[in-house]
Each structure stands twice: as structure tokens, then as C-alpha cells.
């Protein structure tokens, strides 16, 4: 990176005006495990599949949903290692913001800074775009919010969204079920049902991960036991 031989961007326009590398990155995202998020009136829930490549993998060591600040969490679909880079950068940016302005970073600012980083990697020498889409959920002074950030660097605020495999079915399901005055508990049930729709195999607290943030502004990942309880409620 930064070497003179690679000071040109690998992401270049096609004759039809598309950036093919970004399209391919989105394809990588669509091949990733499903993640979804739902914004309720009093909180946000994000959930992701946690299909491990083999039964020998220690599932306690895998954490797909990560904390960025005490009140903001993130889930991803696509390439795990790429998401780690973004999570690390976002955490640092949040700390820098706090040191500069002496207030916790608003969610929209953090999302924008992350998106800026992702865009830089589509217009810099010797690098490729990130192969992840992120679902960032948080609760700040502007209430509960859910954002989706794509490999191109574009971001949108969503009431409910899904990324990864099976996106169209999941979105249709969410469109039918979503209501503006949904509460967090209903949102968690809806999230589980949506994940269940496209799930291959037996769904349990061990192969999905759910993160919630409510009015207490503390984002937390539910334990497998709590997830199993919600699954039992949904049955």
C-alpha cells in the first residue's frame, strides 16, 4: 500500500459507467451469511447467522456482533476479516471524537466516518474494496437508529433491513411484518422469525447471534441461553 508501483487505483470504471470491483464486492456480500436489523420504537435489534464451517470449531470463540461504543453495535455480512479492520478503525474514530468533543459520538457521525473509510478503499492505489456490508445499530440522543453501510461507501438509515444470502425473501418478510410502533420485544421475535425463514438446519442459540440496544443505551449481545428463551417463545 502506498508503493509507487501501485499508486493507481485497481477499481476503475467500466464502459457502462459501473465500478465492477464494487459490484463484485456486493456479490461477495450476497454470498455471506444473512444478517438483519430492525428498528423498534424503543430500541434496535440486529441478528446474524453464525454458521460455523465445522462442528469442531469452538463456537464460544466466535463473536460476529461487535461493540463499537457502549451504545453502538455492528453486525456484518461478507468477509469476516474485512469487517475486523472496519470495526477496529471505527472504535478508534469513536475514541478520537470523544477526546476532541468530550461527548460520545452520535451514531450518524460514526457511520459516516466508517463509510468514508470504505469509500477510500475504492479510490486508492493498490487496495481493493471491503467485501462486507455492515448493519450498525445504536441508541443516542436522536433515539434508536439502524444504518446499513455498503462496500461502495454509501450508507442509509433503515427501519428494517437485511443483507447477505436470502436477502429478497428476508426483506419481503420484514416489509410485511414491520410496523412503526413496534416495541423491542416484538422486534426481537420478528428478527428471529425472519432468520428462521431462510435458515438451513436447526436454529438454536448456538448458531445465531442477536444484539440489542434499548433506552438504557447499553448495547449488548444476548447470551445463547437468552436466545434459546426467545426461540422458545417464538415457537
Amino acid at each position, binding site marked *: 500500500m502506498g508503493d509507487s508501483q501501485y499508486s493507481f487505483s485497481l477499481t476503475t470504471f467500466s464502459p457502462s459507467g459501473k465500478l465492477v470491483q464494487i459490484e463484485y464486492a456486493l456479490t461477495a456480500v450476497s454470498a455471506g451469511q444473512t444478517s438483519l436489523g430492525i428498528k423498534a420504537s424503543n430500541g434496535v435489534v440486529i441478528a446474524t447467522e453464525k454458521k460455523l464451517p465445522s462442528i469442531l470449531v469452538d463456537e464460544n470463540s466466535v463473536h460476529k456482533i461487535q461493540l463499537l461504543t457502549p451504545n453502538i453495535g455492528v453486525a456484518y455480512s461478507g468477509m469476516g476479516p474485512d469487517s475486523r479492520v472496519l470495526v477496529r478503525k471505527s*472504535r478508534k474514530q469513536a475514541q478520537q471524537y470523544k477526546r476532541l468533543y468530550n461527548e460520545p459520538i452520535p451514531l450518524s457521525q460514526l457511520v459516516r466516518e466508517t463509510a468514508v473509510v470504505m469509500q*477510500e478503499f475504492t479510490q486508492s492505489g493498490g487496495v481493493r474494496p471491503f467485501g462486507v456490508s455492515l448493519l450498525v445499530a445504536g441508541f443516542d440522543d436522536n433515539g434508536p437508529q439502524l444504518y446499513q453501510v455498503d462496500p461502495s461507501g454509501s450508507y442509509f438509515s433503515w427501519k428494517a433491513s437485511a443483507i447477505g444470502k436470502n436477502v429478497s425473501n428476508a426483506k419481503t418478510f420484514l416489509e410485511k411484518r414491520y410496523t412503526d410502533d413496534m416495541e423491542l420485544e416484538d422486534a426481537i421475535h420478528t428478527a428471529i422469525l425472519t432468520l428462521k425463514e431462510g435458515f438451513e438446519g436447526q436454529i438454536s442459540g448456538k448458531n445465531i447471534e442477536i444484539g440489542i440496544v434499548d433506552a438504557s443505551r447499553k448495547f449488548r449481545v444476548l447470551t445463547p441461553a437468552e436466545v434459546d428463551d426467545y426461540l422458545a417463545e417464538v415457537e
Partner: protein
Amino acid sequence: MTKTAIDLPPKGGFSFDLCRRNAFLESQGAKMPKFRKTGTTIVGLVFKDGVILGADTRATEGEIVCDKNCEKIHYLAPNIYCCGAGTAADTENVTDMVSSQLELHRYATSRESRVVTALTMLKSHLFGYQGKVSAALVLGGVDVTGPHLHAVYPHGSTDTLPFATMGSGSLAAMAVFESRFKEGMTKEQGIEVVCAAICAGIFNDLGSGSNVDLCVITKGGKEYLRNYQQPNPRSYTHSKGYHFTTILSSKIRSLRNHVRVVEGDAMEEE
């Protein structure tokens, strides 16, 4: 694009670039600015269930008291606090920076911060600046390995102790500790000894004064007792407050008689 340059780690340490200039200016008679110091008495003590930190609340600028009730016990982590003596800006910023670094470390490791981690981050930073960052700290906290108390000196050396004092009032406070400290005290006993030590500093050291701040950290959590004792109350304010007499007379003059309103063009902008 500058962003693609290799991310070098920050060089850190003191930059001596301006030292020659400063020495020259001083030799020419320019006065070096006085900076705000926390004259200070800060103490820490390990008791049965954890750690108690104490501090006075006076901040001085040379011979003037510039803050009668400043906060000298700084937050580093939910289970780690740090008292700071020396230049106020240095203690505040160093503890702020390390607190930020500890938070990032907590996210990366998914674990509660350890006192030795904070200690190592502080001492590395201070050593890198060769004592120019004038921060003398009493660092205390409780983590999975138990309660810990350390004294950190501006050049980067540290002591690990059951009781520690720093600042201009440290001798007065240490005299109290040396005679009254016992291992395995209860919380009430510990608070009493810490208050006595800080009060010794407040009353016998000019650089310390005003109130006593405490922070009690145990495995279960922390109690930040701001202004736990106020042995120097303001006793000279008017007890009945101030009130003003009824209006004796009033005279209203209309400005319209003196100001002529003229229509005109808007000002031209160059």
C-alpha cells in the same frame, strides 16, 4: 492520495525542536508563563475489600488559588481511578488518553481492564517524554487479580505499595499513614485514615486546601464521593443574602427624538 501512505506508528516522546528558541527568549528577558499546578495532597490506600483514593481540591497558579474545588480523581476505567498531582493539564490529558486507550483495549479483548495495564500505559508515555509531562499519579483499582495501588512519578518510574502519597502535601499525609495504617482495615476505618491524611495536607501545606474528595473501589463497584468532607466552609457571606431597595424614581427617554431613520441603499459588497 495521502491516505495510502504507510501508516507509521506515531513517533511519540518529547520534541526538542523549540528548546533552543525558548532558552534564547528567556536569556533575553522574556518571562516563561506560569502554568496551573495542582499543589496537592493525593493519597491511596489498600483496605480489606479494595482501594480508597483521596485528594484535596485546591488548584494553584503560582501563589494564587485558581480553583477552590477542582476534581483531582480521574476516571480511567469503570474499576480503575487515578489521582493526579503536578501540572493540571498534564494529569488531565494523560489520564484522558490512557482512559481512551483502555477502552479500545477492552473492546479488543472483551475483558475488564487491569490496573497493571493502565500502569504500563502511563509509565511508557511518561518515560517517553523524559519527565517533561509533569504528572505524578496515584493509581488504584480492583481487577480480577485483586486490589492494586501504584505511585507513578513524572519520569516514568513506579512503586507498588499498600499506601501511597504524592504532591506537595505528601509528607504531611505520609506522616498520618505511617502512624495509622494497618493491613486489612474495614471501609470505615480506611476512609477515616484517608480523610485524616488529606486533612493533614490541607491544613499544613499551602499548595493543598479546600475539600476532601474520595473514591472507594471494590470488586462490586465504585463509590465516587465528591467533597466527602468540607473542612473549609465559606463563613463570610451575608447570611441573609442581598436584597435591593424599591425603585425610588424612574426616567424614560424616547430615543426616537435623537435618532433619525433615513432610507438608503444597501451597502455595496466588494
